[in-house]
């Protein structure tokens, strides 16, 4: 009797999981199966971001000028949202300098910008994966002779399944209205 109960409870416990993940859409960036390490050294699949719409960008922490502006741009979006909207979105900053951007360096960005731990992910891909992720997000970069980077800056909005819904290259403290509109629309409960 007991093993049967155990079996039944196992089935009950597993069932929601088995039905929770429909196949990924073919145009989802989460088709890319790579691991990310966050600012607390936790390793998780890029795919784990699935389930919540995300505002994603790429940067490197030793950058002095544009990269802090990228974080500010994300924060400007965050602040423009209502508390209810804010609780249904994530912000993910991925470094394209995995050699130097250790979890400690990423943690410093979180401290310096006072980024909410429940919403903001700071992540480091392994080696060559940074370029693959950048390719999917349409971000270009080149490492310079002195270790700095030459790069394009963009915020990319992903829906809960990882499809690119909107992007903006307008970086700064004032949110791009069109991009903010797309965020709001994505967060609006479907009719």
């Amino acid at each position, binding site marked *: 009797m007991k093993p049967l109960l155990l079996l039944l409870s196992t089935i009950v416990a597993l069932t929601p999981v088995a039905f929770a993940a429909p196949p990924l859409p073919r*145009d989802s960036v989460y088709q890319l199966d790579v691991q990310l390490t966050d600012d607390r050294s936790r390793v998780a699949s890029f795919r784990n971001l699935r389930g919540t719409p995300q505002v994603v960008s790429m940067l490197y922490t030793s950058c002095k000028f544009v990269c802090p502006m990228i974080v500010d741009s994300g924060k400007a979006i965050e602040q423009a949202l209502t508390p209810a909207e804010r609780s249904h979105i994530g912000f993910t900053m991925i470094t394209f300098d995995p050699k130097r951007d250790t979890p400690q360096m990423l943690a410093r960005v979180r401290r310096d910008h006072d980024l909410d731990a429940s919403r903001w992910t700071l992540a480091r891909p392994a080696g060559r994966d940074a370029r693959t992720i950048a390719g999917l997000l349409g971000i270009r970069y080149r490492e310079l002779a002195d270790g700095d980077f030459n790069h394009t800056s963009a915020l990319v909005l992903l829906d809960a399944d990882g499809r690119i819904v909107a992007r903006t290259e307008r970086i700064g403290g004032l949110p791009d209205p069109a991009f903010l509109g797309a965020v709001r629309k994505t967060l609006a409960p479907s009719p």
Partner: protein
Amino acid sequence: MRFAAALVVVCVIPVVAAAEEDRGYARIPGGEFATSLRYEDVRGPSRVASFEIMRRPVTNGEFLAFVDKHRQWRRDSVAAVFADASYLRQWPTPSRLADRTQASQPVTRVSYYAASAYCAAHGARLPLWIEWEYVAAADETRRDARRDPRWRERILAWYARPSSQALPRAGAQAPNVYGVQDLHGVVWEWTDDYSALLVTGDNRVQENAERNRFCGAGALSMDDRENYAVLMRVAMLSSLGGSDTTMNLGFRCVREVR
């Protein structure tokens, strides 16, 4: 007599194919090389390490064998983020080629991700831009023929040809001094660092908006008219996304020296 001739042909083909496999890569000795790209942060020539590069671009026939084995790269199952809608559309079906002519032509309409996966499956990778440029600077007799106006004219003549013409078979042109064929005159080719080629319109009259697109210095200048032929390629690669495919864009792989 006819029968005997046919027999000879049948016997010879497998031998040739096997030899082709062995001779698939040419060894490229490293050296100092001044890229035609003008980067603000790079002064003087760069050091290119030795490597091996495919003698000719990957063909449709070879790419079909790859997608047969790695079915996630068939055009009917590939994820849309890794290849656009015209991926491998030159084939009549996802798993069949039109004819033997097509099998021997360079594969085109391949995305960066698909090309990269092909090379990885063969223990290789896509060339870096500088590696490609290093080999492509050669002609039949010299390692660096770039100063020769005839070398440039020959390349520009290809650019002037309409792209609607059928592709020749891969490996039909004269090999360069390293024994590598078809770097010019057949198809454009992916490089591993295509997305590191950041091109600004013109460094001298940069608008603030354009300046803000890039973090820091180091933008690539496109105002070198002397090297127009090479910069055409860079302009093309710098405009592409990783899932893009075009009817003239193929690839070849490189590997470390064995």
